[in-house]
């Protein structure tokens, strides 16, 4: 009996030891842990057209996935040193908190409660989404203000449903809701003319329009009903890591503003006389060292994924099946919301 207990205790201890040893405790700053691991563990959506989706070979594509690659290029020197961890919406925050991922780049809307009470920090917004409305062109509607009394196809129990009801009520307008359980059913109902209006996030509307038989017959109206700023997320408590992610995103935006592209980045680094470009690309001052990185960190980011505009065009813009307008996601100089603080 005694030997049996000893054996069992030893066995349990050995298993526990293996589990802990295999995972290793992440102590100290995130950057060191990532360097030790050799890869950036990045939580992404398993499948969301344009943001993160696997190609035929299982390689992650999309805007969110490229943010991961950009951060890996900055922190580890190689944009391919990313371990993509597909996460569903209900486990994403827990995965970040428990250290299963180092960065969450998963179409996550920045809100007060997530930032303050969930123990997370948001990097700058990479995509300003918002609920929009789509109508057939044949309806001749130019603005959502003309939609009084319209029949609207919605999915039940979503914030979408609540937002549209609030929006109509505050303007003293009425609408008739046509409710569907399944996204496919809901989309098809609209295309078959069972309702006048389809409403959801603008990026979703665009991908819905892309699958219509004749996408040119539908128009997304200019009004945005709710704010959905989508941003990368990191854990509270490691300011250096937050800075790296923040300034990687800022760098992508600033690069577009300064006209630095994937093609000309190396050339500009060698030749440009613009002091800010010189600082960004590490030819004059060494900003990288202040982040705990090397001089070429941002040059590497841009040669890996290009600037923000290039990323947008490649994944979401015209020419992709999603065919999204830049809209609010354009530089402040063009009337958009993208505004990176100066690099100095």
């Amino acid at each position: 009996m005694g030997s049996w207990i000893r054996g069992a205790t030893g066995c349990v201890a050995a298993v526990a030891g293996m589990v802990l040893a295999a995972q290793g405790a992440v102590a100290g700053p995130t950057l060191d842990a990532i360097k030790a691991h050799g890869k950036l563990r990045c939580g992404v959506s398993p499948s969301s057209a344009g943001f993160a989706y696997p190609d035929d070979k299982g390689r992650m594509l999309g805007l969110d996935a490229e943010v991961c690659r950009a951060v890996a290029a900055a922190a580890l020197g190689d944009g391919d040193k990313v371990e993509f961890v597909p996460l569903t919406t209900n486990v994403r925050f827990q995965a970040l908190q428990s250290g299963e991922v180092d960065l969450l780049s998963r179409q996550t809307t920045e809100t007060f409660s997530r930032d303050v009470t969930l123990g997370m920090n948001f990097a700058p917004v990479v995509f300003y989404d918002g609920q929009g409305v789509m109508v057939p062109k044949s309806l001749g509607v130019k603005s959502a203000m003309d939609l009084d009394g319209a029949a609207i196809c919605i999915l039940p129990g979503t914030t979408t449903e609540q937002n549209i009801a609030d929006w109509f009520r505050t303007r003293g307008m009425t609408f008739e809701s046509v409710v569907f359980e399944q996204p496919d059913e809901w989309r098809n109902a609209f295309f078959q003319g069972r309702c006048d209006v389809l409403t959801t996030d603008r990026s979703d509307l665009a991908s819905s329009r892309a699958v219509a038989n004749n996408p040119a017959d539908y128009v997304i109206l200019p009004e945005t009903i709710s704010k959905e700023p989508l941003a990368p997320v990191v854990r509270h408590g490691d300011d250096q890591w937050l800075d790296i992610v923040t300034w990687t995103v800022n760098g992508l935006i600033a690069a577009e503003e300064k006209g630095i592209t994937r093609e000309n980045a190396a050339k500009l680094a060698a030749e440009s006389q613009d002091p800010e470009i010189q600082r960004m690309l590490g030819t004059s001052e060494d900003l990288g060292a202040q982040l705990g990185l090397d001089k070429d960190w941002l040059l590497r980011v841009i040669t890996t994924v290009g600037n923000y505009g290039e990323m947008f065009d490649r994944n979401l813009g015209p020419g992709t099946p999603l065919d999204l307008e830049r809209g609010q996601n354009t530089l402040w100089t063009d009337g958009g919301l993208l505004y990176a603080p100066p690099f100095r």
Partner: protein
Amino acid sequence: MPVSRFGPAEALAAPLAPPAARGRLAQIRATYFGTPRNAVVSLFCLALIVLAGQATAEWLLLDAVWAGGPEACKAGEGACWPFLAEKLRFAVFGFFPYEQQWRPGVAMLLLLAMCAATMLPALWRRELLLGWVLALLAMYLLMAGGILGLVPVPTSQWGGLPLTLMLAVVGFGAGFPLGVALALGRRSRLPAIRTLCTAYIELIRGVPLISLLFMASVMLPLFLPEGWTIDKVLRAQVAIILFAAAYIAEVVRGGLQGIDKGQYEAATAVGLGYWQNMILVILPQALRIVIPPMVTLFIGFFQDTTLVTIVGLFDFLSSIRAAQRDPSWQGIAVLEGYAFAAVVFFVFCWTMARYSRWLEARFDVGHK
């Protein structure tokens, strides 16, 4: 001279049942068109079957698009098979690195080969257990890598059919001994053990698998200190094992109750102790009775593993769903992936069901 029988010979020769209709056609007529009402019902059902069959055949084969890209599928009416051809490897292997996918492929074949071997009663020996241990170890090393020049692949990239099979087979295989122990414990004469086992079984059976998976995946990591994580696949696997054990325990208990009391008494009378009694006399008989319900249970478990999608594991079904979100195919190919999944699940489940029938016949369980 025939063996003499009791009673008059005529009585034995007399038919015991009404004369059976001759020929298959006549039999069908008698069964389905015996009365006018039967005939109407039969015709109605036949019409339904023909209609459904025709629609299915048109979608699956006649109107299907066999070649081309998304544009061809958008124009076509039927199923879009080029989608499946393009996404097949992703559907089967999920996020496992493309160049390394031979590894889960070999691991899966190894697992299926071991399952096939285990299905043959002629091979039920101690060596089989050793074979399983070695096969599982080999599978793990193949999938995880890190030795013999294999690139390490973290479990977050395991997925597809190999993961589904692994969760089901390992869950059931490891749950089985635990389940047998629980079943014996529940019938134990020691109150502490009996209460403990009963409480465990009732507790686990009282909650759905999905909540157990959630506990393992979402709650557990929050109790651990930050940075100490237990692997996600391991967490889900343990949850499935614990869940399976409780159900197996109840099935085995049913088998134990089916054994005649005389067996226990006889074994005790020849001087066997409790364990010898159980291992040599009772369990071999009890387990034999419960083979059919056990297979049913396994089929259910095999299908239930698709629930791991909720905790972010990419089993076979969720890999297919992920593949559908490719923007170039989105909204164009929806049912094709599900049709493929249905066929794969059906093949596995049907094979198991047939096996169960065969085993039943072999052991003559039904006529006990």
